[in-house]
């Protein structure tokens, strides 16, 4: 895979990125700066409270919750809006968590009885009090000031996984600015893996905007990236 701008397809204009990966995507208009409220009506507040309870009742940790939102039908992701995606995810978690049969809410709205049981089908596990923070099994591989390259395809194939690499830095080279601490890799945690003592180091990495976006820019991006997302600049 080439890193030279212009030699690989611009993922920002491609349909091959997950719908939630919005950073740098072209075509969006002005920010609705006056949409200032946390909830614009009481139904949205209800979605917030109820979805938290649904997550708990379904046994999903935070990464599994986020991955659920990412698995929204790409054609509906934007149209549903933020709280619409939360409610849709509440229903998804409840079904995958073995709590409610599929389409239970559709049945209820149609006035039909909601009966029957459903088997738990997710590998995600309930959140623990510790969250995802875990001791790493070894020292951090990369050092402050080191130049690192971000993985190009991890988490995209064979299907969209819960990978926390923003698309606009895939394949790009940045500089390690901070070494934070270690957490379970979200890609694993969302699927119920890595719940032992294994943490992955998280680095803050800087990237000049001029190297990321077609339109350039004189600003700097600062992004937190897990160690498995990175290789040394010199690595093939």
């Amino acid at each position, binding site marked *: 895979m080439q890193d030279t701008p212009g030699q690989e397809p611009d993922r920002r204009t491609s349909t091959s990125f997950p719908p939630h990966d919005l950073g740098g*995507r072209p075509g969006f208009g002005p920010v609705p700066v006056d949409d200032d409220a946390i909830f614009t009506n009481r*139904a*949205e507040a209800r979605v917030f409270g109820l979805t938290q*309870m649904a997550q708990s009742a379904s046994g999903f940790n935070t990464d599994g919750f986020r991955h659920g939102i990412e698995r929204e039908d790409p054609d509906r992701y934007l149209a549903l809006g933020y709280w619409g995606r939360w409610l849709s995810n509440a229903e998804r978690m409840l079904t995958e968590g073995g709590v409610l049969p599929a389409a239970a*809410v559709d049945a209820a709205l149609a006035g039909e009885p909601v009966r029957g049981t459903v088997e738990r089908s997710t590998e995600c596990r309930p959140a623990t009090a510790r969250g995802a923070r875990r001791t790493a099994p070894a020292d951090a591989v990369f050092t402050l000031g080191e130049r690192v390259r971000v993985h190009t395809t991890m988490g995209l194939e064979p299907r969209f996984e819960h990978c*926390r690499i923003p698309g606009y830095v895939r394949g790009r080279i940045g500089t390690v600015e901070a070494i934070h601490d270690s957490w379970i890799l979200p890609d694993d945690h969302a699927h119920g893996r890595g719940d032992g003592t294994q943490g992955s180091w998280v680095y803050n990495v800087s990237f000049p*905007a001029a190297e990321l976006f077609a339109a350039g820019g004189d600003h700097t991006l600062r992004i937190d990236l897990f160690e498995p997302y990175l290789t040394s600049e010199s690595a093939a």
Partner: protein
Amino acid sequence: MSHDHDHDHDDHHHEQDPLALRVEALEQLLVERGLVDPQRVDALIQHYEEDLGPLNGATVVAKAWTDPAYRARLLADGTAAIAELGFGGAQGEMMVVVENTDDVHNVVVCTLCSCYPWPVLGLPPSWYKSPEYRARAVSEPREVLREFGTELDESVDVRVWDSSAEIRYLVLPAQPAGTEHLGMEELAALVTRDSMIGVRQPLSSEPEKAGSAA
């Protein structure tokens, strides 16, 4: 952030709202199964609307403006310094505070979802969660800031923090000139939520501007 405390009495206004119908139907299914107590949902919402909010972050900023030793601790270990004032918890387990200066302006976004430091700012405003902000804050931050009415000199280095892991960011805005004589409480009133996300400057001390961006 005002909201309607009479919401229990105006449910009929939402009869045609598909989201309202759907969440009501889901709640009923969960209540029937003994999985949800509606009063606990009420309490959870109330906690996030009333106990958490940008006043917590504003208290942190005002303290940093008035106490150089605290400011140094805040920039060195945000989580610990914020905990000194009693703030912490979900979505604030590891806090990093980034300082705006004459030369550097920081802006925070989450392009992959809408990560936000709940213990110090409460829940995020709608615009923070909008696809427009998530898409454009990283690629054209100066234009986005201009939409908020924030003009930065070309010489200012803009840093955009994309909250892609479990670290949450709080911007420490520069203290407005001429406010050195003010006390903590008066200073905190100048520290708007938007200034701690980095899209606006804090209010100046002129009273006519108060509240314009809180």
